[in-house]
């Protein structure tokens, strides 16, 4: 009872791959084990944790809740390995995470990075509250989220500065303001 294999073409981070997979191969496993892109992590395989989040045609989605054969219907998949710019310069959100100490063990990080990269495309200037809401669908067990929320705003700043004045200008920007602390959150 050998399983039927499907030959699929997946465009990941701009590169077209052809792989043979059984229909039940999850996209997360296909990326990690068939394509060797192990930056996409797996933390629950039931859609809650978000460690497996990738951008599918620019939209963040759970790669553990998609079969590779279905994913092949899409134009383009971006994983954490593909966030950097063409010259290898880190994406603003990658820089912001390091600057703001928004990661500890780093296991959840790729999922947050892809999520936020996708989010900032539509919401270039989120308030603290919006930033918190934006990352509220992914789990992190280490950081308590505070620095992740700061990193969203910092990434937005860096991104805007890059768009306006190029990367050099962005680096000169002041560090992310510490949002004031009274009154809790929503």
């Amino acid at each position, binding site marked *: 009872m050998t399983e039927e294999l499907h030959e699929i073409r997946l465009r990941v981070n701009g590169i077209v791959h052809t792989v043979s997979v059984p229909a039940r191969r999850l996209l997360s496993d296909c990326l990690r084990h068939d394509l060797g892109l192990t930056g996409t992590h797996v933390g629950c395989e039931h859609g809650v944790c978000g460690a497996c989040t990738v951008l599918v045609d620019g939209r963040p989605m759970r790669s553990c809740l998609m079969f590779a054969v279905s994913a092949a219907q899409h134009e383009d998949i971006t994983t954490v390995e593909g966030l950097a710019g063409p010259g290898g310069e880190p994406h603003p959100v990658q820089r912001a995470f390091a600057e703001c100490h928004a990661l500890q063990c780093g296991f959840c990080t790729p999922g947050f990075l892809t999520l936020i990269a996708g989010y900032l495309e539509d919401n270039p200037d989120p308030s603290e509250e919006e930033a918190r809401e934006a990352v509220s669908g992914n789990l992190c067990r280490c950081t308590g989220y505070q620095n992740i929320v700061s990193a969203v705003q910092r990434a937005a700043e860096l991104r805007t500065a890059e768009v306006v004045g190029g990367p050099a200008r962005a680096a000169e920007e002041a560090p992310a303001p510490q949002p004031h602390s009274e009154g*809790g959150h929503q």
Partner: protein
Amino acid sequence: MSTRLLGAPVQRTEDRRLTTGGGSFLDDLGSDACAAAFVRSPHAHARIRDIDVMDALDVDGLIAVYTYDDLTGPMAEPLPLLIPHPSIIDGRTPYALAREYVHHVGEPVAMVVARDRYAAEDAVERIRVDYEILDAVVGVEKAMQADRIVHEGMADNVAAHLVQEVGDAPAAIGAAPNTLELDLEIERSASIPMEGRGVYARWDSARGGGLRLYSSTQTATGVRAAVAAKLELQLGQVEVVVPDVGGGFGLKIVHPWPEEVMVPWAARQLDREIKWTEDRREHFVASAHERGQQQRVRVGFDDGGRILGLDVQILHDNGAYLPYGVIVPIVTSTQLLGPYKPGAYRVEFHSLYTTTAIVTPYRGAGRPQGVFAMERTMDAIADHLGKDRVDVRAANVIKPDEMPYDQGMLFQDGRPLIYDSGDYPKMLRMITDLVGWDDFEEYREQARAQGRRVGIGLACYVEGTGPGPYEGGHVQVETSGKVRVATGLTSQGQGHETALAQVVADKLGVPMSDIEVTTGDTRRMGYSVGTFASRGAVTSGSAVAMATVRLRDKVLKIAADALEADPGDLEIIDGRVQVKGSPAQGMELGTVAVLSNPLRYAFDAASAAATQFSGAADYDRPPVPEDEAPGLEGTDFYSPLRCTFASGAHAVIVETDPATAEVRILRYCVVHDCGNLINPTLVEGQVHGGVAQGVAGALYERMAYDEGGQLLNASFMDFLMPYASEVPRIEIDHLETPSPLNPLGVKGAGEAGVIPASAAIAAAVEDAEGFRIDQMPISPSELFHLRRRHARGEIASVPRRPAHRSLTKEN
């Protein structure tokens, strides 16, 4: 211009790889390995009558199936009891695969090896186990009643029993003018790192055989010793490498797990690479939990609120087995005392078997329960006397001039419970200032006028950190000038690579970018204990500091010889050794490394300088002087006399919804003292993460077992780990009272954030609601029912609290 790196908020060196997908976690390794999966018990307690694997055998991709009957020698014996303690009456540990009985849902019964995890699960699904179902024992009351017994051959369910006494507490309570009795309970929760457990083994049959084992663990050397013993290998035949680890929080200190011996054992049997990556469902039922504990407190106190006698009875749920001994209730018993002097103290615990997942330390390790008992007691005393809650604490804290303070007990490391340093009155002042304790009544009135209910609470803790026996550090300068650092303990996100590099950079005088740190690799440091009990910075930090000082001495000696200068006149700046005041006179560290290793053969220009005809030699001594070794490296070990005691206080303001009983945290304030800070950013990160787990344990997370021992919420849909939307913003103030016990003056910071959260949040909810909260966590549904019972007069009100403190800030 040497800027101090110790204490600076340096950005982490780990982050480059971790933000680009370049990390290597356990499941990222071994792309060609076969996959393991386990048949696990669906029952809480049962006898295995028969295992039928026939149906599985024709699964495409199946490689092997193993059951207990395949195991021989030490593999057929129970796994070790890691921390024996005299209080243990009958210490049961599991077999690598269940032998005849299973004692909790999730216990491994058979192992499947297959081409990949999909095929392995196909086979698991087809293996039929015939069970005779036995009685489940869930909860400490049932366990204590002992009309159902977990382990065959035992008369009751008591795994361990211990009484510790300082003075005569019952007498002191009997004589006290005021007494109270309280039942205080914390439910089960768990570490739940985002990455589960995982093991990957490679067997090399050449030359007598050798094992390379990768494990997502908190102890490389522990796993090596345990696996070597099980597989009857010499330590030298086993290498354990710990890759990036996606969080541990205590859970991954347990070793060897059943899977951790089965995977290498099968790799040797089959002579194939095998990997097991735990999935989330397995993690919930088959790893480990903590926290579940009932505590009865009797306390006697004077009219000033000073405790005269304290008597605590603890029922501790240790789950199905006791592989990690009784560390958790021992920690509760001792750390319950917090920053206070209890007068006479008696504590007794029963550690009980239940047919549920094992219980081993989870960040905080018994302290959250102990602090809950003590701090809820403090609030009850205050209410009994009509005093302010801060005043009662101030009346009981140890004063700085009483340090070091001996609590008169033995701590979890088997050494005296002596607090080394701390300033608890100042800590209380700082937390009340930070949260605005004295202005709260005004705020409460304003809120009340708007129909809102708010409350404030606080809780203090003391945490023994950095226990021994020891850790080591090895620091080596390469001829390139790069510095390689190794310590044996492992990292799960604490940022050891950065913090230890800061120590080396600071003590040696080299740039951070030239330092590379390795943790948890027995090939680089074979002597080590592990990462637990907030000990990384204290033990490895100190060991690396000491090794660096040794190395520096050697650098200066060799350079002084070469430069014909006095070692005392030399300094190391930015990786260059030079004469103080005349920097032109000096040499690069790399050159010193070349000189430290006299050579016969040159392989490049730099090495030529160390060959025998390259320069003036002293013919009166051998090329490598006596008592010296070639190479530029230093190794040292730090073995603490005893723990160093960190401390802190949290204050919380909550709002409870009058209609829906939802609890919202409006402010969360932390005062934290972990001695000198190596890197304040990293410490704050630890506090944030700890507080998030504390809030989780107070308001969201629990392990919901039913009476039959089924875990009802074994998924992230139902185990409510908070998202960013549930975790409040955290305000932190640091207090730094250095530890006199170690060269860096540091104390551990890893666990602190989680410890007082349940106590502080319970206090705040109680303050908002006006009735006592004695059990955590609390959900809106539970608060709703408490309200009803309060309205019916079934639970007492807390008296209206005084608006002002009597003992004020001069304390």
